[in-house]
């Protein structure tokens, strides 16, 4: 019984939240890694792109809610998501035309593009704050829980409850679907193959007649979709606040680098590595240990390795360890 209780407590506080958070990070890191692979720079505006996509989705959600359109138990945001994606696609294609294309044609150094993306970040950040304001926004509706802690207790007879939030289920399901679609696209379609070829060897791809502008356009479209989905899922699961999205840059980049920049599979693995380390290191293990250890070994403190305020320190520490021992990442990434 104690073992079961420990497992339930562990899933409730560590496994499920970490899987949901890991999916969100993985989707974010996929966007970063795709841009890195195809356009060859680290996009610092990615966090704010996510915020922009989430913001448009929130605005549409509010509009639908005011018209009385609902999805039943599912959040209305899912209905608004396509509109958010479309708006973000327009925004990113617009930025590419107005800003990035000039430097691409000039073959500017990657670091210049990074600084340019910093300027884009400023503008997107300002835009989001200008339109929706810097405060916290709640937009989740529908059923909050799939499994409620109390119902689970009554059903199983255990003393530990298991809560499974709708947002977590949606996050996990969406992430699986999106990743499957992405990999199908990259591996099976002609455009996807040309994207991978372009990422592997630009000159060879150009020689074989691949149109670079088309590849770049598709990349931005995919990145817009990924960023918006990641942003909306994160907002549904936690809450929407522009500054948090900016701060997500660090764990997202850490995920992409840990997995190997430019490697989509690595980005997903990296996202889960970062999420699981963050959650396990900042979780107070006392509850689980109480069930597992014999009575005389009961821990006196919370058995929390680091306070939750230091969750950035965790992604950072993992990043440093990987940089020190395996600079190209766990999966082989690019190292230009």
């Amino acid at each position: 019984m104690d073992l079961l209780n420990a497992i339930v407590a562990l899933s409730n506080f560590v496994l499920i939240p970490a899987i949901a958070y890991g999916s969100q990070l993985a989707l974010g890191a996929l966007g970063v890694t795709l841009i890195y692979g195809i356009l060859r720079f680290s996009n610092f505006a990615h966090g704010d792109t996510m915020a922009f996509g989430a913001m448009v989705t929130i605005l549409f959600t509010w509009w639908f809610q005011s018209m009385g359109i609902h999805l039943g138990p599912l959040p209305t945001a899912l209905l608004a998501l396509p509109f958010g994606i479309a708006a973000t696609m327009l925004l990113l294609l617009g930025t590419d035309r107005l800003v990035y294309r000039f430097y691409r044609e000039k073959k500017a150094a990657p670091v210049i593009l990074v600084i340019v993306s910093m300027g884009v970040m400023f503008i997107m950040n300002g835009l989001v704050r200008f339109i929706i304001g810097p405060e916290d926004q709640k937009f989740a509706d529908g059923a909050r829980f799939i499994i409620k802690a109390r119902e689970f207790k009554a059903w199983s007879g255990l003393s530990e409850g298991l809560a499974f939030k709708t947002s977590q289920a949606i996050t996990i399901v969406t992430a699986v679907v999106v990743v499957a679609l992405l990999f199908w696209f990259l591996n099976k379609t002609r455009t996807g193959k040309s994207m991978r070829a372009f990422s592997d060897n630009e000159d060879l791809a150009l020689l074989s007649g691949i149109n670079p502008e088309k590849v770049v356009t598709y990349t931005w479209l995919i990145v817009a979709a990924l960023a918006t989905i990641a942003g909306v899922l994160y907002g549904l699961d936690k809450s929407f606040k522009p500054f948090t999205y900016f701060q997500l840059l660090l764990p997202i980049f850490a995920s992409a680098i840990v997995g190997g920049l430019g490697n989509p599979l690595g980005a997903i693995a990296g996202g889960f590595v970062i999420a699981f380390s963050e959650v396990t290191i900042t979780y107070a293990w006392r509850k689980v240990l109480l069930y597992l250890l014999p009575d005389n070994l009961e821990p006196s403190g919370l058995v929390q390795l680091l306070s939750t305020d230091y969750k950035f320190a965790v992604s950072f520490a993992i990043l440093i360890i990987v940089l020190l021992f395996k600079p190209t990442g766990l999966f082989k990434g690019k190292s230009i």
Partner: protein
Amino acid sequence: MSMNWKNIGLFVTFFVLVLVVGYTQSWNTALVIFNMGLISAILSLGVNLQWGYAGLFNIGVMGFVALGGLAAVLVAMPPTMEAVNAGGLRILIGLAMGALTIVGTIQMRKRMAPGRARAIATVVVLVVGFFIYRAIFDPGVAAVEAVNPASTGYLGGLGLPVLLSWPVGGLLAAAAAWVIGKTALGLRSDYLAIATLGIAEIIVAVMKNEDWLDRGVKNVIGIPRPAPLIPYEVDLQNSQSFVDSATSLGLDPVIASTLYVKLGYSILFAIVLIVILLLAQLALKSPWGRMMRAIRDNETAAEAMGKDVTARHLQIFVLGSAICGIAGAMMATLDGQLIASSYQPLRFTFLIWVMVIVGGSGNNWGAVLGGFLIWFLWVEVEPIGTQLMNFITSPMADGYWLKEHLLKSVAHMRLLTMGLILLLVLRFSPRGLIPEK
């Protein structure tokens, strides 16, 4: 730099702008802008050293500035004896234990042959060290934070003159930069960017959460001034000779005292700026400066000539960060307080970058000018934006939602403007206002 008329004109523009603010708004505001402009110029010099001379992409400026602010607290605040007695020793031993664990691990890894035994030993030493560190450290922290938490609850500082904290802030920042540089330099340029971004977030997180160190989000107020150089306003108003000379100049003694204090800071900061600018110019013109630019322009060629690229990068990264630390300590001295939650990356990292790029990367005068101008713009965008919005929304009816929303959102115009300026300069004048020669 060749002091041509265009460049002199650009600097004069800034001073004229400050004078305009002085005449139209108030001299107090003008001096506030001017003083922070001086500090911004120093920060921008530090970043220019890293980016302009060596092409290093540091986006952790905020962290080094925050460390400077911490130095001001640690040096100048009076010690809380009760807290020191309660847990000071424990905290010190705990920290020493933590440092010992890390040094021990590194030493052990050097001695042992690579393999499974070394990996296991590393993990064991780290885990055991961490738990010993927490066991010693935590009770000390609890004891310190229990001492009169409403007003102190921290160890306090050394009670030394605050001017001493400026070099100390530089040293703290240099130490942090050394650690980061050691790990991230020599890898691709973006990695340094991410690593600095991360360390800055962590430094600020530590300062927000470690109450025993700097009271965390409860803020430290009342950092002593560099007396007798900068007196307190109240003392000036009580001094008969000051009141007399103020009235003889036709000034209200209260206003005169605030102006006097701010002017004192201006002179102090200007001296630091001039010294750093002079040193930076000398360094740029020296063989060392030429070597740095040679490395920046072609690392492979410089390496072939026998230059140790990574070591030189580390050197200049530490130097530039130290300057940011000095500026951070100056800022805390000027404010007389340390507000950990005020360290925002957009304000303290990315804005400095806009200054360097707009001013002209690689040119110290350009960096200084960028610091002045962009800081002025950052302060003045809001009032200008408010007026602009009032004008735009004037045809709309009062209470119309769009009008209210637009007026409320004016505060966020700053970021938009800064981003736009950065992109425009990068596109149309990538070498900045005063380009590198």
